[in-house]
């Protein structure tokens, strides 16, 4: 019995191959049952997302489980071996466990720290569980993987900082204002990114949203979508002192807001801080405006720099996550070893108990006048002897760190006491 993983991912195969190997939700139960019925496969589950398709299986050690699964996948999707073989990777035993921990913790994802993968793993587990293709080993492994992933999300910062432009803008707003729920936003112009940023700000609870656009109809439409108020484009200068965050993304070839506009607005709003996000190219706001006190002007490149810094920060955190995975892997292996040793320990106990019972019966048959109290003393004494004799061997078995040494000990115990499997 050995756990192994066979799969393709964004790291080994382009989308043209991944899409051929992926299993749709409808196909999954059949595929699971098919793999489960292979002669050398004991347990299996399939993780299939747009970035990876992996079969996690418990196979017979030294058997042909991997080849069987590979052949099954190719047959299932009607594919030729040739070109695809290069794309597959195989992990077994420890590296397989470590890999599944890494995948669940999103360390193997295209974007480190992305939140979807854990949900996808849970779904895959549920699906395999419903199809009855998982057993004690995979159930334990997946529960551990989910626990480790959660631990990593809370104990490290791999998911902490925004890695998209629009989220980075919201985070910057939080670094400036702390709580943005009472703030007012002015959206000038329209565009995918600015609308996304506005949406994030709204979901973070900004109080007021004002929409200005060259076309009045467009301003009205956007205002309706965001639950804001439309204003004519000509009036934006009168509003500057009332808003805390401005997002601009017009197609204008020239500046829309000059430094003097901003500084006079700052004067009117008594220097309460202002956050200006200029997503337009060419830019809408004079870059000099950043020199005004308490004004923070970010253009698209600035936001990109923040995103890159955030990514680096996540990569640093990924190292911490890798350390946690190493610890958890060691714990998992230890747990598995204990599971292997438990039956032997139980057998040893039963073996001793049988001898004790037999001998006690014999002794009692030789002592016809024995009283109940004396009988209890005899039982207690023999029990104590047994306990003391097997205490040390059992602790040696439980404490063995090295799996090889443990195996030797288990075998020796079985041989010495002539225990059967």
């Amino acid at each position: 019995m050995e756990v192994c993983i066979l799969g393709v991912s964004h790291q080994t195969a382009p989308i043209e191959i991944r899409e051929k190997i992926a299993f749709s939700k409808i196909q999954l139960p059949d595929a699971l049952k098919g793999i489960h019925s292979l002669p050398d496969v004991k347990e299996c589950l399939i993780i299939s997302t747009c970035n990876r398709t992996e079969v996690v299986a418990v196979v017979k050690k030294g058997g042909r489980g991997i080849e069987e699964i590979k052949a099954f996948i190719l047959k299932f999707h009607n594919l030729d071996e040739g070109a695809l073989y290069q794309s597959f990777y195989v992990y077994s035993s420890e590296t397989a466990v470590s890999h599944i921990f890494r995948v669940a913790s999103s360390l193997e994802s295209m974007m480190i720290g992305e939140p979807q993968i854990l949900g996808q793993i849970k779904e895959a587990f549920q699906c395999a569980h419903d199809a009855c293709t998982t057993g004690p080993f995979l159930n334990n492994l997946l529960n551990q993987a989910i626990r480790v992933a959660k631990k990593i999300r809370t104990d490290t910062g791999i998911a902490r900082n925004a890695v998209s432009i629009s989220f980075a803008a919201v985070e910057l707003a939080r670094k400036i204002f702390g709580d943005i729920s009472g703030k007012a936003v002015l959206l000038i112009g329209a565009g995918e990114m600015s609308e996304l940023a506005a949406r994030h700000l709204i979901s973070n609870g900004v109080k007021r949203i004002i929409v200005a656009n060259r076309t009045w109809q467009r301003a009205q439409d956007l205002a309706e979508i965001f639950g804001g108020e439309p204003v004519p484009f000509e009036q934006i200068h009168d509003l500057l002192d009332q808003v805390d965050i401005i997002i601009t993304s017009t197609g204008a070839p020239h500046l829309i807001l000059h430094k003097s506009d901003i500084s006079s607005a700052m004067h009117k709003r008594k220097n309460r801080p202002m956050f200006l996000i200029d997503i337009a190219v060419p830019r809408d706001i004079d870059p000099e405006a950043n020199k005004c006190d308490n004004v923070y002007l970010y253009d698209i490149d600035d936001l990109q720099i923040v995103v890159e810094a955030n990514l680096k920060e996540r990569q640093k955190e990924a190292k911490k996550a890798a350390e946690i995975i190493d610890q958890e892997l060691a714990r998992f292996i230890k747990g598995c070893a204990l599971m292997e040793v438990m039956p032997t320990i139980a057998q040893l106990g039963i073996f001793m108990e049988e001898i004790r019972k037999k001998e006690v019966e014999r002794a009692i048959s030789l002592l016809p006048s024995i009283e109940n109290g004396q009988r209890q003393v005899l039982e207690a004494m023999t029990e104590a002897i047994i306990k003391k004799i097997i205490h040390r061997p059992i602790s040696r078995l439980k404490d063995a760190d090295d799996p090889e040494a443990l195996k030797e000990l288990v075998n020796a115990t079985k041989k010495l006491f002539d225990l059967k499997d």
Partner: protein
Amino acid sequence: MNILCFKLALAAYLAATVFYLIFLVSMKKGMARMGQAFTIAGFVLHTAAILTRYAEAGHLPVISLYESLSFFAWATILVFLICDYRSHIPSLGSFVLPLTSISLIYTLALPSHIEPLNPALQSAWRGIHTISAFLGYGAFAVAFCAAIIYLLQERQLKRKKPGALYYRLPSLETLDFLSHKVLAFGFPCLTIAIITGSMWASSAWGSYWSWDPKETWSLITWFVYAAMIHTRVAAGWRGKKASYLAIIGFLFVMFTFLGVSLLLKGLHTYG
């Protein structure tokens, strides 16, 4: 007894300093919680130290430099704990605790015996004067730390290249709001200290105001903070400018508190 309590308090503050600094580097919330726990423990021990010393001396023990620095640290920690409870900015602890710990380590080199109080100075005004002056100083010290954090974070945001501090420090408005609140508490304290001080002077020396260096410098300090509050309300000097003023104001406080006593001779001992 009071010295032992004091040393234990200092040990707790040092532990809190270590935890708060680890928090700043690692950003682990557990570290900040440990820092907070040790700060509270230190504060309780410190309070016990001051109370037992009070009992032994028979008067509020703020006469020697040793006692004054200790009382200053106590007031700073008190203001910090209130801020921490109200607005929870653990990274403030990473600045306040080292500052207090260093000033307390310095006291270890000072003579710590109890000095008798000049009977002429025995007055009901003394308690109010001393306590309000030191609460004001404590508030100014916390505002000073908040101002430094503000300037660090402001620089990160203006430069648009987020460094290690960007991720670790709180938001600008939180800091600005905090230092404004703290100053709004510290300024009346300083005002009360000056008024009760002149009452006390009149009962002890027979004159309300005698242009003693301490009196002069505390008046200057009072004007600095008055100017800060005025410019904020009237001209909207907030953020960066207000932070610079908070730092300058604290330098005046330190000069009034220590510089005057050490460099210029006057009627005050310390404090």
